[in-house]
């Protein structure tokens, strides 16, 4: 269903993450399943209540390399990244009670021992 949304673009370099842009847009947001362990985005109220939760793309320490499969080259292999850098986008509903977006790193495991670390908190602008 078409709804107001906010698209945020982030850049990462090692463990450093910063927001590049924030844009309001009217579109249909793909459905989000319950995110597993790893990085995720949480849309929160000012009091910290979670309004929406989305898994973030896997940020690899390597890159996928394809070859046409001739001259003995593997048709696909992975190569370690020299630096862990890149960008990713987050698309969340634009809800009136939303105050900020938090990027968190969920280590997974049983709920009683599960560790969740906040990486970055970004205030949502009234207009963008």
């Amino acid at each position, binding site marked *: *269903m*078409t709804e107001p949304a906010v*698209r945020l*673009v982030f*850049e990462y370099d090692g463990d450093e993450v910063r927001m*590049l*842009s924030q*844009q309001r*847009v*009217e*579109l*249909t947001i*793909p*459905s989000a*399943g319950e*995110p*597993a*362990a*790893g990085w995720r985005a949480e849309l929160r109220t000012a009091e910290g209540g979670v309004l929406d939760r989305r*898994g973030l*793309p*896997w940020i690899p320490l*390597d*890159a*996928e*390399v*394809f*070859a*046409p499969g001739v001259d003995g080259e*593997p*048709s*696909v*292999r*992975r*190569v*370690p*990244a*020299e630096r862990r850098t*890149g*960008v*990713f*986008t987050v698309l969340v509903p634009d809800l009136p009670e939303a105050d900020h977006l938090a990027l968190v790193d969920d280590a*997974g495991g049983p709920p009683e021992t599960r560790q969740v670390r906040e990486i970055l908190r970004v205030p949502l602008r009234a207009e963008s």
Partner: protein
Amino acid sequence: MTTADGQVLGVTRVVDHGPPAERWNLVILGDGYRANQMTQYAQDAARLCVRLEATRPFDSVWAGLNLYRVDVTSTDSGADDPAACGGPGTTARTYFDASFCNNGARRLLLVNQATALSVAAQRVPQFHAVVVIVNSQVYGGSGGAVATYSLATGAELIALHELGHSAFGLADEYESYLGCGIDTDRDHHPAAEPAEPNVTVNTDRATLKWRSLVAQATPIPTTRNADCTRCDPQPDPLPAATVGLYEGAHYYHCGAFRPQFDCRMRAIDKEFCAVCAQQIRRVLLPFTPAIVPDVREMRRSAAHQRVVAAGLVPRYTGATGPSAWVRSQSPAGGRTVRYGSEVTMQLRSGPIP
């Protein structure tokens, strides 16, 4: 090398299935095309559209997609191809700074992804995914926030595989890391269950992620790798496209399983397997419009069945029974609604006309 090395000319909706706010929108960008190569770029972009439409399962949800071509010129043609990776050492001044030879791999072709996302957002605010075509005949490509591929034969398949990751949340199904016969530390997958829908460590038929697609007669596991120190050399023991539980996936020889012997997430020249196709459809169906069938025109045999035409969910109200017939329906036949919408049929008793 930077955005000073070219300009954005404009955007064209090359596949138009309706309002962008209601569709899944793919943006195609080009890099390393000079101003006098825009006709060639348009043809290259059109070939990607044709390839995508012909690819299962995109063909079945095609009406849910819009494709946009953003015309971007570069000062030079091609991409950087450093000598350090065996290339000729050429440098091309291009808008998105396309370059081979990343992380020491010549075929790893990257662009400035932040610039690509920025241009996509400016020109198509409702975009969901971005693909960059690089004007080079050297085979290469990459994934991440933006999928990239060159014009070498078959390289466009890299983009389809990478969209599987970035847009549809699919995992790699191949069982090697550096390559079969090269790896020495890929014998057994860790015990943790991967989050993606198309790989698993679970061998229990009753709780298998894709159990609904597995025939009762198909053995689970379907194959086992007899030598976990290497990739499994055995051929598919079952008819092609059988969904089962094949050992060897997610960069490990043993302990991780994939749904079918072949899949585009395992080898890019294959079709998406049934599980991956189901996941792609699951994401795209909410964007896909459906035309309401006129149930009053339906034959008796059809009227006695639950009608799930084009994904519509009918709800029968009023009289029911073997002689019931449709008196009216809402929405009316012929209207376009969102896939999965509900059609209410008012039934009456009496002989079938």
